[in-house]
């Protein structure tokens, strides 16, 4: 797209071949003796220690799950436990070199990674900082528990803190790292650089890239490691994350200071199995996961397979790979070969692998082999190592007892505070800017061509006589969105926006026209056609503390980022126990003219998912005010826009759209036309057809309709609607979504319950047909039209004298259609 890049046919059409470099496989071969210059004896023993912590931690969980006790302490844990017994060297090797500023993301099988990275960070933090972290986290709640009767060093206290916080989280205790709302598969602790683990296979594949984007854009130290499984390499979001992370623009188009690859390492923990599917040989074709790097970019992602059975081999690889990242040559793909002895979960009977195979890998057990090598190299003796193991075991028994003590480690008392979880769904913290520092922009806002042009526009659609100004003169809905967004770009230095065709093109539907000139590349750029990564990276970006506006060109493409929108974006605030915030405003445009896959209103799908705020403004005033509110908040907002009305002027707000900043609170519907005989509540651009209907009702049938624009779906304040129904006794609820299962029905149900005594007829839903959206020329048969409101009133509420209905709203037709599923 960028004009600066000339695509020369002469070059593009030249014959030649793509050359690949060999990808290294298990090339590390040093003995401990040879490494003695690089590691102190303490370091080498600490590596052993950390591996044993993981082994014992996981063994404890395994015994609890399979025998109901550990070292004579009985406990029942009904929740999940995906253990990594056998994989300890890969986790410790991965974490060893990382600093506190380096972040890791993980999977369902990440207890080992949490502990390894936690132990590594504890080791690197000085005692004062470590204490501060422990003292401030949840007001020192966890610290108080692990400090009781403990007299050891700050670092040992830190280790107790780490193991306890993780264990209590796994057991769903309120004293866990995430108040027990994350659990085994999601536990994390950001002060140690441990970011969310993900129960959706491959879920971290794009989120981690967003974290790396945050580091790069905001000039933060550190790298990001995405710990993902070998089987997750088949997942779309992982591919999309890789595509996003390797975009040429990082090295070719971004400004000089910003130039360079993303600081992210895709760390494939290759235990050679999915659940029961064997990746190499059965479910994948890559042979070795590192091969994938060869196809992605000319650097081949610096891909390499290392022996994850040897912690020193992994550490060696990390030292080299971190250098690549530091040289801005990322991203990196590292395949860490390992093996899990434990089942996928404790209920796994390992029917998919032979006993001989497991035994063969157990014979080379990473911990025992490493211990043997340490003793052979004279670093320590077996007695000492056994002593370490015994100490760790004692520590586990001690912390297990504390973590299952219902008095010390209670679960959330939902009876006492029934809304405790509810209160965590949204953070609701108005925040002007996510970070105090100067914003990076290309010119002063007043110099922006679009801003200058907007100053000349009519901010109300009609002149003093009530005649509409020409479309060209009118300040349009797209201008309202633009004004709110550019304003925030000049306030919040962390704010970035991206999506398909966002830069140069001006964004789909010209909302971003003028932004390209105002903003450097790293604040506004074009993404790959990769909706999963557009949303997924935004989630990672926001988790780290940045504000972001991802854009999905058409609502219909939401399916392409289903997991990101349904499982990730809405959940992390609550799953973190409110540690994380999610200031993401996801712009979604609802189409109308391009048929079945470009015209769907999927607001209902999104409204169904707890944890998302959902708005759908259709006037310039509402669009600007709601965008301001969305951008001022720290919650994920799915911001729906309608392609039917991008060019519409302001017809309602007296005085037009204010030039300055104002907010419209999310969740407040608005009366767009007052009336007394019937209420029409609409979602989205259906508003304008409802207003047409209101006019006909008034003129032809003497019925005065009150038209209310929902503006928001989640949250939603029913009070205004109920007041209206008290007056009118009748209500129609309409939107462009296909009727079955739509949010319109939700509104109808609530209104029925809340205003039953005031209703003369049941609320009537006027939605689209349960069909595919036909061609534009046939849309009148599909989307609610002005006439449909009269049809529905006539048929279901009150007969209109002499009225002949168009669309069929008879009960019998309703039943017939339902029977046929159409």
């Amino acid at each position, binding site marked *: 797209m960028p004009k600066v890049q000339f695509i020369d046919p002469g070059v593009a059409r030249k014959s030649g071949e793509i050359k690949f470099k060999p990808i290294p496989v298990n090339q590390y071969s040093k003995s401990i003796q040879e490494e003695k210059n690089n590691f102190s004896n303490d370091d080498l023993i600490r590596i052993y220690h950390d591996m044993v912590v993981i082994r014992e931690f996981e063994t404890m969980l395994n015994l609890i799950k399979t025998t109901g006790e550990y070292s004579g302490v009985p406990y029942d844990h009904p929740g999940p436990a995906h253990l990594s017994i056998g994989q300890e060297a890969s986790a410790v090797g991965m974490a060893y070199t990382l600093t506190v500023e380096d972040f890791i993301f993980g999977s369902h099988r990440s207890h080992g990674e949490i502990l390894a990275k936690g132990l590594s960070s504890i080791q690197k933090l000085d005692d004062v900082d470590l204490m501060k972290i422990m003292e401030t986290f949840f007001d020192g709640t966890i610290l108080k528990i692990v400090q009781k009767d403990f007299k050891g060093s700050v670092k040992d206290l830190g280790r107790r803190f780490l193991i306890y916080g993780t264990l209590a989280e796994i057991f769903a205790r309120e004293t866990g790292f995430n108040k027990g709302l994350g659990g085994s598969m999601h536990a994390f602790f950001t002060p140690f650089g441990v970011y969310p683990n993900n129960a959706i296979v491959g879920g971290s594949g794009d989120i981690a890239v967003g974290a790396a984007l945050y580091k790069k854009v905001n000039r933060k130290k550190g790298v990001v490691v995405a710990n993902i499984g070998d089987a997750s390499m088949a997942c779309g979001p992982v591919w999309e994350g890789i595509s996003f992370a390797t975009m040429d623009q990082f090295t070719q188009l971004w400004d000089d200071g910003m130039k360079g690859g993303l600081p992210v390492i895709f760390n494939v923990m290759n235990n050679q199995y999915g659940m029961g599917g064997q990746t190499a040989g059965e479910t994948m074709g890559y042979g070795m996961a590192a091969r994938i790097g060869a196809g992605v970019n000319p650097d081949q992602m610096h891909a390499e397979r290392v022996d994850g059975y040897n912690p020193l081999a992994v550490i060696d690889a990390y030292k080299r790979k971190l250098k690549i990242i530091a040289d801005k040559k990322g991203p990196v793909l590292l395949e860490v070969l390992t093996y899990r002895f434990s089942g996928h979960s404790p209920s796994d009977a390992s029917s998919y692998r032979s006993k001989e195979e497991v035994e063969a890998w157990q014979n080379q057990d990473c911990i025992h082999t490493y211990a043997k090598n340490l003793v052979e190299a004279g670093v320590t003796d077996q007695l000492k190592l056994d002593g370490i193991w015994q100490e760790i075991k004692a520590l586990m028994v001690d912390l297990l007892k504390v973590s299952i003590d219902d008095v010390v480690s209670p679960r959330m008392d939902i009876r006492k505070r029934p809304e405790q979880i509810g209160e965590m769904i949204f953070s609701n913290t108005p925040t002007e800017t996510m970070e105090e520092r100067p914003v990076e922009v290309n010119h002063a806002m007043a110099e922006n061509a679009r801003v200058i042009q907007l100053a000349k526009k009519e901010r109300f659609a009609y002149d003093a006589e009530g005649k509409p100004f020409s479309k060209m003169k009118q300040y349009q809905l797209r201008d309202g969105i633009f004004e709110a967004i550019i304003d925030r770009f000049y306030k919040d230095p962390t704010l970035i926006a991206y999506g398909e065709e966002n830069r140069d093109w001006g964004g789909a539907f010209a909302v971003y026209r003028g932004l390209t000139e105002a903003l450097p590349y790293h604040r506004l750029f074009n993404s790959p056609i990769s909706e999963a990564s557009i949303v997924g990276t935004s989630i990672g970006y926001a988790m780290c503390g940045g504000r972001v506006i991802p854009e999905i060109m058409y609502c219909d493409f939401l399916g392409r980022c289903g997991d990101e929108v349904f499982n990730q974006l809405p959940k992390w605030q609550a799953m973190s126990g409110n540690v994380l915030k999610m200031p993401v405003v996801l712009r979604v445009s609802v189409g109308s003219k391009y048929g079945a896959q470009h015209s769907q209103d999927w607001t209902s799908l999104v409204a169904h998912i707890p944890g998302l705020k959902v708005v759908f403004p259709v006037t310039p005033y509402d669009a600007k005010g709601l965008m301001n509110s969305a951008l001022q908040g720290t919650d994920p907002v799915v911001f729906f826009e309608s392609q039917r009305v991008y060019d519409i002027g302001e017809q309602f707000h007296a005085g037009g759209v204010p030039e300055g900043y104002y907010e419209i609170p999310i969740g407040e519907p608005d009366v767009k036309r007052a009336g007394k005989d019937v209420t029409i509540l609409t979602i989205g651009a259906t508003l304008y057809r409802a207003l047409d209907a209101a006019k006909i009702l008034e003129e032809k049938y003497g019925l005065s309709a009150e038209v209310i624009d929902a503006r928001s779906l989640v949250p939603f304040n029913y009070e205004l609607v109920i007041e209206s129904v008290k007056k009118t006794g009748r209500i129609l609820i309409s939107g462009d979504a296909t009727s079955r299962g739509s949010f319109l029905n939700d509104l109808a149900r609530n209104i029925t319950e809340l205003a039953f005594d005031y209703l003369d*007829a049941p609320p009537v839903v006027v939605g689209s047909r349960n069909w595919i959206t036909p061609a534009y020329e046939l849309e009148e048969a599909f989307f609610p039209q002005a006439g449909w409101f009269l*049809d529905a009133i*006539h*048929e279901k509420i*009150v*007969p209109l*004298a*002499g*009225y*002949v*209905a*168009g*669309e*069929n*709203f*008879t*009960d*019998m*037709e309703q039943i*017939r259609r339902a029977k046929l599923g159409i």
Partner: protein
Amino acid sequence: MSKNYDLAIIGGGPAGYVAAERAGHKGLKVVLIEKGELGGVCLNEGCIPTKTLLYSAKLYDNAIGAEKYGVQAREVTFDFGKMMARKEKVVKKLVGGVGLKMKEHHVEVRRKEAYIKGRSAAGISITAGEEEILAANLLICTGSEAFVPPIPGLGSPNETILTNREILQLKELPSSLVVIGGGVIGMEFASFFNSLGTKVTIVEMLDEILTGMDSEMSVMMRQMYAKKGITFHLSAKVVEVNGTEVIFEKEGKKESVTGDKILVSVGRKPVTKGFGLENLGVELDRGGIKVDERMKTNVPNVFAAGDVTGFSLLAHTASREGEVVVNNLTGRNDRMRYNAIPGVVYTNPEFSGVGLTEEKAKEQNIAYKCVKLPMAYVGRFIAENEGGSGVCKVLVGEKYGEVLGVHMLGNPSSEMIYGACMAIEMEMTLKEMEEVVFPHPTVSEIFKETIFGF
């Protein structure tokens, strides 16, 4: 030139003409299209002519039995021709009356065959003969016609084989009559001809006559008529008709019976063909037009009432359904209810019922209590029914004592049953009924006596 109406009605039977009258009264611009005579089946070949004839028969019965009351009427005879002529007169008078009512309520009547052409944004277009009519709403009341089942030898009506229509036009009294179907229509005609001395045989496929009515009373009724000389063949399936011979299968054996005339009264079928219903896409259900509680069809602005819906098949149901349509059209929310529709068999004695029968209550698992009293419990009945017997049965809900059903065998139950209809419609309980004062001495007191039997 087409003309605009608020409401067009096809069919001038009890559904159509009553709806027209009510709609006209409420100020709607109405056109009623009837291809035959106003009044429909009911006035012309159903309720009214049969009741007129049955009254003649009853007078004859009474005259013969007058001695029991100390009245002597010697050489009692009858003139079949005069009976039929009086019936014609009554029908004419009533049909004329309907016409006057239409005028009075500004209903435009077209005595033409209607045909539905289709539906557009402008309205529903119909033709009445040559005339084009455009109406905002359409009410279909095309009624029903006698159903002649596909049995070998049973083609369309002829000299011997008759339906209600032909039998009402007989010139001479048949000496014997075979009635196929022992339902209400069959029993009424059987009763009439039996009174006049015709040898009547009833062939019924089910194991009892008048199914749907209280079964205990149906048995009593059958036994009374058996005494009067009617022959009943129950569980008898007609397999062939051969001239005057009706061949039926009973308990696996073939039997036959012959009659001068054969009346086919096995049921009626809704009239849904031949007038363009398909041009609207109106949905049918078991042969009738499918409607909801407000008599709306599946097509906006199109309604149906009366026999054409295919279930109740009673004139008073038809009229009430027509009224429901008009109420809803004129802004009154009205739903059709079928739980208090009375059914009367105008035999001698009359047999009337409303609401749930015991059979239905059991079938629907409704907990009920039931009390039954002989009619002879009240003075007036004894005074007027020498040697006659009858019975009254009341069903109430077990928990609340609300009246669920009332069934009476005996004269003049047809005139009394409406009291029970009101009780059910108003959801009255035993307690409330006990406080109602009945005139004394009347046969209606049997209702009150039965109530006090709980």
